[in-house]
């Protein structure tokens, strides 16, 4: 891989919250290095609290790591880079006091898009996610899945090279998730974006990703990277193929030990074991 193919270069990134000795001291990330290729969809998967969201926030410039460096292209990341990077958050980060259209337009106001272009670009983005008819609705009037579509439209309208998605479908039910995943695959096949996607769901990771980075339990580090060699857009029946099943099982095996470690560490597992004895 030549350096021009690398969209994001992550080198020896460590991060901890609080100071050593304090009760809330947490080592979230340990010496993580990773190159994210231009145009790929990379999934980060791992047990709860393994630092995958922390890494995403570090890449996006929302969090200064305790150690290590991140470069986007040749620019070192020291804060948000609204022209290169857009976010879709897990929680509903749409402004509830504005309509869907206003939300999308507002993102472009913040980013500095000229006034004349904003509404047209916003409408195009809403069209792309299938929300053209809901431009004048308030987020509170939409279902969870539609709200995440709107959040995606807001991020797409910013026309950044990189899109960071932090469990964007985490709060949705299984069916909505599946449909959104399929639509996302179709939508993103058309763009040349580099995407980092944090998820808990094995199926979602295999279905969407070009590569899946599996995290170890806390302090998080990348344990293994799995390639999903399958062109986009992926057909819904990809889920039923043997290849999908094999990759999913591989991920399951890799994750299972880490999840047990994470659960025991947080004390939940210890109680479960005790109640069985």
């Amino acid at each position: 891989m030549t350096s021009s193919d690398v969209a994001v270069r992550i080198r020896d990134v460590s991060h901890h919250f609080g100071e050593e000795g304090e009760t809330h001291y947490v080592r979230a990330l340990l010496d993580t290095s990773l190159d994210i290729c231009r145009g790929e969809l990379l999934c980060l998967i791992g047990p709860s609290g393994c630092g995958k969201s922390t890494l995403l926030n570090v890449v996006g410039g929302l969090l200064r790591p305790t150690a290590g460096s991140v470069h986007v292209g040749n620019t070192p990341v020291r804060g948000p880079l609204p022209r290169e990077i857009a976010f879709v958050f897990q929680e509903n980060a749409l402004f509830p006091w504005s309509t869907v259209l206003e939300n999308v337009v507002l993102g472009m106001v913040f980013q500095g898009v000229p006034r004349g272009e904003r509404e047209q670009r916003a409408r195009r983005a809403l069209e792309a996610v299938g929300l053209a008819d809901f431009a004048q609705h308030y987020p509170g009037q939409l279902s969870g899945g539609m709200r995440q579509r709107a959040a995606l439209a807001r991020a797409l309208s910013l026309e950044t090279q990189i899109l960071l998605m932090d469990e964007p479908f985490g709060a949705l039910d299984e069916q909505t998730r599946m449909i959104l995943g399929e639509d996302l695959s179709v939508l993103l096949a058309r763009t040349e974006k580099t995407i980092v996607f944090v998820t808990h769901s094995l199926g979602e990771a295999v279905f969407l990703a070009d590569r899946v980075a599996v995290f170890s339990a806390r302090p998080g580090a990348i344990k293994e990277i799995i390639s999903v060699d399958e062109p986009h857009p992926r057909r819904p029946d990809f889920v039923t193929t043997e290849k999908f099943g094999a990759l999913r099982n591989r991920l399951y095996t890799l994750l299972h030990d880490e999840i047990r470690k994470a659960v025991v560490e947080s004390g939940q597992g210890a109680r479960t074991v005790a109640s069985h004895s």
Partner: protein
Amino acid sequence: MRRKGSTRDRLLSRLVQVAFVGVLLTLWYLATAKWGVSHLLLPNPVRVYDELKDVLGSGEFIPDLRVTLTELAIAFALSSISGVTLGYLLSRSQYAIRVFEPLLAGVYSIPIILFLPLYVLFFGLGPASKIALGTTISFFPIVLNTIAGFGYVDRIYIVAARAMGASDYQLFRWVLLPAALPVILTGLRMGFIVALLSILGSETIASLAGLGHRIVHLAEAMETARMFAYIAFVVVIAASLNVIVTMLEARGRR
């Protein structure tokens, strides 16, 4: 609007409310006309109505109304400007919120009207002491709600705006202000109402003019019917002001 019969339900409850007031008025009339309650204690409602017509017709109420409303306007302007400004500044720091919010809430729970003699001592019997008291009392709900409005904006909105490149001004104009506005408006409405109550109340205790002053004056002159007419007048004024600020609040919330 949840159920089919809700329009009928609403109509029915409105009817009960009207009937309740009607029964009260009838009892009042019967007490004075048939049951021999002294008209010094409780004047006949018909006489009160005549007095009210006279008060309104002669325009006698205008100077007192002007005094009270001027006091209210000045007090509310002072408390809303100072309350919103200070509340915003305090809300910028989590430390300041931790230190000052309990302090202000503590002072808010004191019945400040007890300090009226002190205010009269400092500012005299005239409007100045009413303005000072009204400002003090209404300052607290305004500053506390402003802190609550600006200080507890969901962090995700701020993070999202910053990630999209919002400047400090854009963050204030498009995120903090709309997020905080409903809570601040509630504070302003509460402040307005307590300012009105405390100004009317302090006028009845120690004053030279104003609607509260007029009511006490009439009571001392045993002109009970005219006093009742003034009370009714003040109730209507207060209720209309309340309706107006509630409507403004609802409009601001949209």
